[in-house]
């Protein structure tokens, strides 16, 4: 059976859930094989976890140069693995950086790229949702090795035993791969909340919160649910929260199990970034707000009363 390569995303020695989702999705296309690309020593901690989700092989493309340059070395490493493995397909989770890696890889391999899939069939047909999820599209790669980026939370990860046989891959970087040097990496987000883009639960605040100080109401509700925190464009434009938190057409697109919209009217530009959420809950004082047209459960009322009460209620029920 042909291999299906899955690029591994990890943080501090822990494989991200999105990678387990891809290893699960890969099984219908062929034999899942994980690809670890990073600084020397990255793979050691990850191998066992990857085996638990069915990785028959773990290709290890490590080098201290890889993280020193932006994007291009990771594409070069994946191309080197692809040359060795002749895979049936290559899957990456749809983060902004992974989409750029996939883009470069598509050019290197003369292969078609499908991005932001939310579904994947055994014959390689990917389902994408476009125009703010108003249109659902089925696409296939018609040239080369299919390269497909898949939105986090599109598949439920299912454990399955894999041999996780380690295969080292040598990567040599060209001058072009080393053209954009990373000179510093700065962490701006504080605290231990999950990352917005692939969180299972997202709580977002909108204009209804009134002022920056009130955003703590959203954060407390998010923390009670173990959720990431998002915001509407109005809140970002007002400067109450950083742009990285913007959910919507021109911000982050999320597709969580649960999306809680607090004080968000639900303009098309916001809905475009969260409409594929599995379950949507909305709190808004305006019964006519468009967010209620797409909410699975909505409460018309004062967020300043409901959100803190909900935080308490969830905390109580969880304990």
């Amino acid at each position, binding site marked *: 059976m042909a291999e299906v390569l899955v690029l591994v995303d990890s943080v501090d020695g822990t494989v991200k859930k999105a990678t387990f989702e891809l290893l699960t999705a890969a099984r219908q296309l062929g034999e899942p094989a994980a690809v670890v690309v990073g600084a020397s020593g990255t793979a050691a901690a990850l191998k066992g976890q990857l085996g638990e989700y069915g990785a028959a092989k773990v290709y290890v493309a490590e080098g201290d140069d890889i993280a020193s340059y932006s*994007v*291009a070395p990771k594409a070069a490493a994946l191309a080197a693995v692809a040359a060795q493995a002749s895979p049936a397909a290559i899957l990456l989770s749809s*983060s*902004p950086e992974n989409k*750029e890696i996939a*883009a*470069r890889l*598509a050019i290197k391999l003369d*292969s*078609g*790229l499908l991005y932001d899939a939310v579904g994947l069939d055994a014959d390689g047909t990917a389902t994408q*949702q*476009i*125009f703010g999820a*108003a*249109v*659902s*599209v*089925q*696409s296939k790669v*018609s040239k080369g090795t299919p390269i497909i980026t898949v939105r986090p939370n599109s598949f439920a990860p299912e454990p399955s035993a894999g041999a996780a046989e380690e295969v080292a891959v040598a990567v040599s970087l060209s001058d072009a791969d080393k*053209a*954009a*040097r*990373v*000179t*510093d*990496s*700065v962490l*701006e*987000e504080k605290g231990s909340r999950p*990352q*917005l883009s692939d969180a299972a*639960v997202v709580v977002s605040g909108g204009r209804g919160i009134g002022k920056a100080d009130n955003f703590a109401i959203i954060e407390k509700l998010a923390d009670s649910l173990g959720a990431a925190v998002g915001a509407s464009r109005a809140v970002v434009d007002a400067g109450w929260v950083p*742009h*990285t938190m913007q959910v919507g*057409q*021109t911000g982050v697109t999320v597709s969580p*199990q649960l999306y809680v919209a607090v004080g968000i009217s639900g303009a098309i530009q916001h809905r*475009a970034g969260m*409409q594929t959420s599995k379950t949507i*809950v*909305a*709190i808004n004082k305006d019964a006519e707000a468009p967010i*209620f*047209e*797409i*909410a*699975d*459960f909505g*409460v*018309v009322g004062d967020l300043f009363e*409901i*959100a803190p*009460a*909900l935080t308490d*209620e*969830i905390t109580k*029920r*969880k304990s």
Partner: protein
Amino acid sequence: MKEVSERMNIVVLMKQVPDTEGDRKLDPSDNTVDRNAVDPVINYIDEFAIEEGLQLKEAHGGEVTILTVGPERATESIRKALSMGADKAVHVTDEALHGSDAAGTAKAIAKALGTIEWDVAIAGSEATDARGAVVPAMLAELLGAPQLTQARKVTVDGTSVSIERVTESGYEKVEASTPAVISVVEKINDPRYPSFKGIMAAKSKPIDVKSLSDIGLDAGEVGLANSWTQVASFENAPPRAAGQTVKDEGDGAAKIADFLASKKLI
């Protein structure tokens, strides 16, 4: 001498897209974007790329050239970009380009850049129609040029360009030498509105219309039939069915918690 060498040839990559406020559709005859269903506009994020180009010109001297690959009608958007202050434009348009996917488009841009002098090529980080955010990376790969993408800040010093690249947890500082491919995120600046004077001046600014043969790209490399990906089918998704909405009677929070519990979400 220094002053002359610092003058920058700034190219801004601009895409015309269907207005996101409209009811965007695919054309069932060939599954491509229906460009007549909704009024076309400059891709919203490209306005930030244009502004960044204009600011680089104001700081370093030089020229801003708008480069657009797209149908004839894109002229309207090109004129608007020129009215914001860009100096001239190159418009690659050819029937054979219809239906090109991201890779086909990137090839056309790469070839077109080969016909002009450029120090930086600045794009918006993504287009609001396809939302791929992949063309700038493809372009850098095709050209063998440095990729400086997802920038929230761009600094040019002679032939050195550095950016702050937005990451999921903050930012990275990335630097390279010109010529470099840059993409900018929205909010990097505050795009200017065209002035009346700018609108009048734009009417006489040159737009160099080029065909595929003018840029030296074989028609077999682009277009729907040669695309590396194909849309097999599509359906207009039924609008998401609304669920239950209740009025808060002091029990709103408890009702949400009940709902979440019923879905096993808490």
